[in-house]
């Protein structure tokens, strides 16, 4: 392998990654539910160096009215990065990447939310990335799912998301920014943990079929770790210390 511009060691001989984690170790995850007063539901997540705020409104009247569906509710999602969320100022206008992520997050949440109970309404999900550090779509999805539960919108299951990828020919859990830039593959996965169904899977990079299987298994195990944090966030808000 040739020497790259940034000469970081992604994985050393002892199996330690560039930020000091083991290959199957996620970054630090902290979620807080109900942080905004004016939204029906909200959540704040810190996923490594990612800092993301999600707010949910609804179900409420659809405007413009022609978007309304007479036999089920609809969902709209906006993923937006603040200009100061990255090291070089980001233009606040929605970029191609943000539009794509808004779409995939919406499609990852839709199977979980029981929109058929609320015909002619809309559930709006707003996600603001305050600080980005690789894997922000997964973190945003985790926060959005907690915000939806906080808003009391009926859900079949939570949605937990975590990425896995290939770095220095090894499958690792929860890719950070450096690994995303320099690594060989990145695979975000979202899971409904109790139903065992995957609602989002993307892959950027090349994997062999065996690596692909292993990558999914690794990401799913990460999703289950995230799920525990999401559960605790909701329990903390609604049941206080008396939670079972």
């Amino acid at each position: 392998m040739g020497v790259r511009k940034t000469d970081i060691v992604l994985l050393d001989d002892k199996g330690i990654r560039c930020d000091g984690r083991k290959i199957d170790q996620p970054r630090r995850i902290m979620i807080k539910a109900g942080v905004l007063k004016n939204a029906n539901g909200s959540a704040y997540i810190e996923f490594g160096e990612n800092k993301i705020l999600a707010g949910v409104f609804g179900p409420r009247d659809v405007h413009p009215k022609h978007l309304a569906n007479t036999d089920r509710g609809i969902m709209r999602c906006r993923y937006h990065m603040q200009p100061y969320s990255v090291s070089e100022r980001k233009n606040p206008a929605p970029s191609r990447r943000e539009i794509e992520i808004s779409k995939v997050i919406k499609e990852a949440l839709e199977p979980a939310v029981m929109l058929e109970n609320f015909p002619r309404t809309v559930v709006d999900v707003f996600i603001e990335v305050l600080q980005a550090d690789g894997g922000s779509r997964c973190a945003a999805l985790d926060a959005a799912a907690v915000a939806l539960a906080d808003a009391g919108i009926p859900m079949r299951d939570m949605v937990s998301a975590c990425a896995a990828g290939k770095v220095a020919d090894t499958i690792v859990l929860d890719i950070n920014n450096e690994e995303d830039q320099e690594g060989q593959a990145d695979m975000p996965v979202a899971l409904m943990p109790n139903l065992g169904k995957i609602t989002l899977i993307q892959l950027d990079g090349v994997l062999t079929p065996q690596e692909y299987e292993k990558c999914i298994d690794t990401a799913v195990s990460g999703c289950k770790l995230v799920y525990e944090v999401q559960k605790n966030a909701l329990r903390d808000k609604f049941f206080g210390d008396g939670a079972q």
Partner: protein
Amino acid sequence: MDDIQRKYVIPGDVITTGPYRAEENVHLFGDKIIATAVGVSEVFDSGVRVIPLTGRYLPRIDDFVIGIVKSHTSLSWELDINSCYAGILPASDVFGRDFDPKVDQLTSRLKTGDLVAARIANSDRSRDPLITVSDRDLGKIEEGELIKLSPSKVPRLIGKRGSMIQTIENATKAIITIGQNGYVVVSSEDPDGLLKALDAIKMVEEQAHVPNLTEKIQEMLGSNSE
């Protein structure tokens, strides 16, 4: 009654498996019964349900609700009933059968912002819920202080056979009207009583999941009056 099993759940939690009937806020997946809302699950005789701790009001026929007038057309008012749908109050309900949209001004009876005690007359998936004021004790609410609660906390505010609400009313001499949709109107001649009643209701909202809340409210109201 005591053989009901309760536990705190969040969406996705498997409450139980087996031949139970899936009632409110749960769904059946294979043989698993899964919660769909944050709340307290109850497993009784043959059914399973979740009492939600958050979420909007879903109109049900015959519910008593308090609405806030949002707007009107020439034939009906639109009321905010704390739901994802607006409550429709037909003008003929207020003006009577000889209502004539050419002559009768809707604003002469109910203006934007007015509070109305009403009942859900009809509600289904296909249209906005129809509400009515043609019954005893229904109609415009002339005075009082509005408090907005989560609809899920209403049963707690009423208490077992009305114990909680009676405690508050007796201690503060306030008159409390509770809508199933979580809107509550408190009125009292005595401003101190009004403030005490408002405090008590806020306390019920904040501590809805705490056991023996009625005694705590009694204590709080008792200590305040001394």
